């Protein structure tokens, strides 16, 4: 009887271990300018650039996860948390992935939060409900989250950020920027934009990045308010229009009614010698053009 009990306890301990969180520590050689693809449905994915020509994955596999698969082929390394079919009560996995700083990084999650830091290659990050946070100076960013918040310290080159209900926040813009949300807000806190489009249906837009370059910048919302804060001495061509909202213009002429019978307002003017074409419009949201 005693032996049976010992065997049973041993079995339970082993079985218990396999269902508990498992520590991960895996390393693979990788190209300095390769592609690293990461799939983790729940938990978190933190990607960090480093100077080694290696990919290292550390962290914890969630309880119930089957294994961590790492496949390398040519310049591509694919990291995937594999879950058992028809499993239940699987916990999220927490992954920290060190990659060569020049890697192109592609991350796909469902509810896992994603962070990327210290990377100089292109980032392509997607989540359904996870938050996404980017620091460092990637060469290009393409990022979407359905309901999570997207926060990025900088943008560069051609950046595309998209949410349905999540917020978008850029601390310092640089280059061409496209940011789209349905009901989430868009806040560009500083930097400069060479062109692009910020648009929402009902979310507010506030942009404090200076428009530069020759491409046009468009800020559009249906019912959200749109605020653009520009340097006092900015030379640009402006076109502001709203169907039924108000226009508060600190640097140009007062907006005029577009029709005797319709509520629309419009202001079109240039400052200095003219410059980038800046178009702001809303259907019913308030438009503000302010100076710093």
């Amino acid at each position, binding site marked *: 009887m005693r032996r049976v009990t010992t065997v049973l306890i041993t079995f339970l301990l082993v079985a218990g271990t396999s269902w508990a969180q498992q520590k991960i520590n895996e390393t693979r050689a990788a190209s300095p300018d390769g592609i690293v693809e990461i799939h983790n449905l729940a938990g978190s994915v933190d990607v960090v650039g480093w100077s080694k020509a290696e990919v290292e994955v550390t962290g914890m596999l969630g309880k119930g996860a089957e294994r961590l698969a790492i496949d390398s082929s040519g310049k591509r390394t694919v990291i995937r948390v594999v879950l058992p079919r028809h499993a239940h009560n699987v916990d999220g996995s927490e992954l920290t992935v060190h990659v060569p700083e020049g890697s192109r990084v592609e991350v796909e999650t469902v509810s896992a939060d994603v962070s990327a830091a210290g990377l100089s290659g292109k980032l392509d990050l997607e989540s359904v409900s996870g938050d996404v946070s980017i620091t460092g100076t990637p060469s290009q960013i393409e990022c979407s989250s359905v309901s999570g918040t997207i926060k990025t310290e900088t943008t560069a080159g*051609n950046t595309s950020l998209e949410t349905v209900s999540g917020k978008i926040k850029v601390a310092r813009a640089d280059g061409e920027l496209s940011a789209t949300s*349905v*009901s989430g807000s868009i806040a560009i806190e500083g930097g400069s934009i060479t062109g692009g489009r910020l648009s929402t249906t*009902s979310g507010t837009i506030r942009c404090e990045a200076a428009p530069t370059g020759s491409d046009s910048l468009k800020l559009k919302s249906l019912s959200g308010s749109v605020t653009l804060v520009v340097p006092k001495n900015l030379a640009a061509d402006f076109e502001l229009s709203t169907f039924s909202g108000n226009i508060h213009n600190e640097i140009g002429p007062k907006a005029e009614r*577009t*029709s005797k019978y319709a509520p629309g307002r419009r202001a079109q003017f240039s400052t200095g010698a003219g410059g980038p074409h800046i178009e702001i419009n809303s259907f019913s949201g308030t438009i503000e053009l302010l100076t710093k």
Partner: protein
Amino acid sequence: MRCEWVRDRIDDYVDGELRRSEALLVRDHFESCPECELKAARLLRLLERVAGLPHRIEPTTDLWPSIARKLERRPLALPGGRRLLAVAAALLLAVAAVVVLRGNLGRPPRSALGTSRPVTVLVPGTALAEVASAEASFGDARDRLLAVLQTRPGALQPQTVATVQKNLRVIDHAISQITAALEQDPNNVDLAHQLVASYQLEISLLERATMTPVEL
């Protein structure tokens, strides 16, 4: 060449409906812009995926009943005379805008909010046919994606389903807002574009849910 110019034409490019001269310009642009090329490839994959789906799938289980019910409650061709007219006008204008853009290689037409709307020349028979086709395409794609979801019982966690549902409601609300705005300003090309983009977003969200690997 600016990416914006190319992206305005990507739909027609993958449909093979661009004029040869424009198609060549787009193709040239792809050689120097992997991003636009990727967008075209993704769109092509989506179209192939939708086209390749079975026309009718009998669901084995009643998965996602609330999503299906919700979407069934809001038919794409919106009921009611004025509403339907507004949507038809919007889609008509979206198609018209494409027609205008096709003939204008420069800057796309500026905002139509307020005044200074671009002059659009419509070919009623053709445009109306395209409107009907566009509406049908969205409805068809949505129905097929819902059918695919119904074949994946237990594929997504309840929280994910809730997130998708919540955001479908957000898009629904946006579509209602845009449609209401179009009732007030039926010649607004921007709104028409926004309406079409919202439909596309809905399809994209459903597509993403169908492509999400099995969670549990």
